[in-house]
């Protein structure tokens, strides 16, 4: 059977009539079946994907196929897809079926993409190792004793292990970039507001961003440009026109690149990761780019700012899961109050409950100004500084993560240790700028390094072009 690693390969086969969409789907279904133990998929829409492939093959024959005909897509379990289950890897959404389709998913479907299934993740996208799923952890295909990262661990592994062409993820503080780095694939978190969030199960609304996992920049750019742009159902989405990212993937000239001194001085930074990053800087210089170390004293505030604000928003966003209208309701309830308490205590996992409690605390009247208000101010400062920096420098680079993929179970006892995995990814989330993680070699254990590259607001086009050049 033919192997497919990119949409370009699929299109070539389709064009040369070496394969049909059905063949492509069958290839991925066989892969999924073979690598079930990775636990990447929560549900595979096998028959439906095959039926759709047949229809799209007919459209291709008739010359009426959309731009994504032949692309097979996996969805993190946080995207609404009408008539399909949606659970955010949580018990509390037991048996919930979505009654509508997310804008971004619909746009892919309209271009004849095939949705192959629902991907495992940390419960409600809260986590950095995919160990918080109610359906068990996902294994890193590079080394099955290691975590794939999180929260979009299933999406990263699905692309890493060739279980689909591209996968959608959501990134609130690193949930795309960190697992992309751990799994050695490409993952982008676009500018906040670039893609409509309508139909994305909300975690922390002012941070939540929809992005793409892929093996090639071209696939990534194509999927994003189709999903991005104005949407009447999301008042916060940008109405800025979307460039054709995938058509301009050659980076011309020399860039002015910044890296933060604080990054290299970070306590939690693993030696091999540091060395890999220093080598990267050297390489960039050798290639003639101007690379400059800059001070960013606010960096140490990014993580606390992030955790205060995202827990605040999530405590409110998750209030709707109460067992009243849908999802899990505890059978042991006596009255209204016990229905709330028991349904939520039994339905939510430990990490989710921890964040709801933290968020409720930081929003409470006595602590509001000390935490929430202050964090909002710091967020503004960080955003302005990042924006200034990216006006004088074309790109900001840093390691995506302080370590490579760690062993399963190694941080589950200490949530603070786990939170440090987000150390380098939260900055772009707090600021809202686009950021991509690309594979950047492997450590002595054979685990992938990720290089994170940020650009200024809405500069995805430039980011893709530069990343593409870096990967060549």
């Amino acid at each position: 059977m033919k192997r497919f690693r990119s949409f370009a390969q699929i299109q070539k086969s389709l064009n040369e009539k070496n394969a049909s969409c059905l063949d492509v789907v069958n290839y991925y279904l066989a892969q999924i079946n073979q690598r079930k133990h990775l636990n990447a998929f929560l549900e595979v829409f096998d028959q439906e994907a095959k039926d759709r492939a047949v229809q799209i093959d007919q459209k291709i024959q008739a010359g009426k196929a959309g731009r994504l005909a032949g692309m097979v897509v996996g969805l993190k379990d946080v995207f609404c897809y009408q008539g399909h289950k949606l659970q955010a890897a949580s018990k509390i959404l037991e048996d919930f079926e979505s009654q509508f389709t997310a804008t971004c998913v619909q746009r892919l479907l309209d271009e004849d993409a095939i949705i192959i299934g629902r991907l495992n993740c940390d419960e409600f996208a809260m986590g950095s190792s995919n160990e918080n799923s109610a359906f068990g952890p996902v294994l890193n295909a590079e080394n099955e004793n290691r975590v794939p990262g999180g929260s979009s661990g299933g999406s990263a592994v699905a692309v890493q292990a060739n279980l689909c062409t591209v996968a959608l993820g959501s990134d609130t503080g690193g949930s795309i970039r960190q697992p992309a780095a751990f799994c050695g694939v490409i993952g982008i978190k676009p500018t906040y507001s670039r893609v409509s969030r309508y139909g994305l199960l909300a975690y922390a609304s002012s941070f939540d961003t929809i992005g793409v996992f892929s093996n090639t920049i071209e696939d990534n750019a194509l999927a994003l440009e189709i999903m991005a742009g104005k949407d009447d159902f999301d008042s916060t989405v940008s109405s800025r026109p979307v460039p054709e990212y995938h058509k301009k993937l050659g980076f011309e000239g020399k860039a002015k690149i910044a890296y933060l001194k604080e990054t290299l001085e970070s306590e939690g930074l693993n030696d091999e990761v540091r060395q890999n990053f220093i080598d990267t800087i050297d390489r960039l210089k050798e290639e003639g780019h101007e690379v400059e170390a800059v001070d960013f004293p606010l960096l140490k505030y990014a993580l606390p700012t992030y955790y205060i604000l995202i827990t605040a928003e999530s405590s409110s966003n998750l209030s709707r899961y109460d067992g009243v209208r849908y999802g899990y309701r505890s059978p042991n309830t006596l009255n209204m109050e016990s229905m709330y308490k028991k349904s939520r205590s039994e339905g939510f996992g430990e990490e989710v409950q921890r964040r709801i409690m933290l968020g409720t605390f930081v929003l409470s009247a006595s602590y509001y100004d000390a935490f929430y208000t202050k964090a909002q101010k710091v967020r503004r400062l960080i955003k302005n500084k990042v924006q200034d920096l990216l006006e004088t420098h074309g790109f900001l680079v840093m390691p995506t993560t302080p370590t490579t993929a760690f062993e399963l179970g190694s941080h589950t006892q200490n949530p603070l240790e786990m939170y440090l995995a987000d150390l380098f990814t939260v900055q772009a989330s707090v600021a809202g700028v686009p950021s991509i993680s690309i594979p950047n070699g492997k450590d002595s254990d054979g685990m992938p390094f990720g290089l994170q590259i940020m650009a200024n607001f809405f500069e995805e086009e430039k980011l893709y072009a530069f990343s593409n050049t870096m990967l060549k």
Partner: protein
Amino acid sequence: MGMQNRDQYEIVVGLEIHAQLATESKIYAADANLYGNEPNTNVSVITLAHPGTMPKLNKKVMEYAIKMGLACQSNITRLNIFCRKNYFYPDSPKGFQLTQDKTPICVGGKIDINTPTRGEIGIRLNRIHIEEDAGKSIHQANEKDTLIDLNRAGVPLIEIVTEPDIRSSEEAAAVVTEVRKIVRFLGICDGNMEEGSLRCDANVSIMPRGSDRFGNKVELKNMNSIRNVKNAIDHEVDRQIQLVESGEKIISETRTYNPNTGESQGMRTKEELNDYRYFPEPDLSPVEVKEEWLEQIRKDMPVLPAELKVKYMEEYQLPEYDASFLSETRAISDFFNELCQLTTNYKAASNWMMGPVKSWLNEQGADMATFPLTATRMAELISLINDGKVNFTIASQQLFKAMIAEPETSAEKLAKKLKLTVQKDSGFLEEVVDEILKSNPDKVKAYHNGKKNLIGMFMGELMKETKGKADPKTAKETILKKLEQHK
């Protein structure tokens, strides 16, 4: 307790009035905003707070709220940020209410009322903000479970919050009455308190007369008529005075008033109240009220009752009583304004509105919006009388009703068809007058002896004989002439 005790205290009341806005769809979803449908029929995924949904603001809601603000002379907030008020309750699907906190759409302003003790006063407004209504929890007899109807969830509301400027239950009732009049006039709310489209909570406290320190306030809820607003406040004031007089403390709490028993009951003390954890709604972009939008809304504003009343009194020279009635509702004033474009006999127009039109509406239990005659027809009627072609009694008792039955026919045509036009033929009148004077020789004598007001009696007889169709001017002249001949 005696009323003499009451005089020693000053009553302090602030109101929070919720008005459901009469928009076609809900505030954050396209679901119909309709009262009385089958439960849970106007509920989309947004209303049900399904995962992945986001609010989509209905701009009409902003427009209606701004109209209310302009009517109350409030300042309009240009950058509106929406906020989440977090609390758990089964009829609140999102687990929070999407409302406004730090940037209410209208700030300040006033409601003018007329009081017996303080004259014309303006009750200051603190704010008017936009929010969404909750669903309904239904507790049925024989039913263990509570049932939830979410048709009302997401229905747009404005909350009008007054300053504690109100000093009596009568003033409170007057404020609610005035608010109801304005919202109806603006067409932004039907003002129906029984159905809950207009709801009122009152914060009530007392303090010794002359003091400037307010007492602990009690919030009264569940007042579903203007009369209940007044009664509930009266009852609460009595309760508070009784507590103070017996040396007890007034606890800040929320109480509900039961109109059937006339008693109130404590719901919860303020100490136990939720911490609502307000924070800016990140799923809805702040909405800017741009100058051109505001200007457009200003242009679309109707002339308001207070202004109309002045216009009617000054420009049309109508008495205050007439002016008040004619500016009471939008439908009446719109009709009257149109009528006054077609006739300059404003007093006659007013008399028709306050007399036959109002009586007919009362008889039919109808409102002005369903009145079958156009202003043009009413103007024709007025001008027939003006020209002496039909007299008022005939017009109001017969022609008016005939016109209502046949609104497409002109007044004059109908009058002719029904032979209701005035007899101007003095030859015919002379014969009738002769007959009347002949059969009343003693009255004729009395007239010539100085009882000149007997002319009225002769006119009455004449009208009776002619079934009211005599032209009064011609009739009077004829009687005077004949009286001279019968000297």
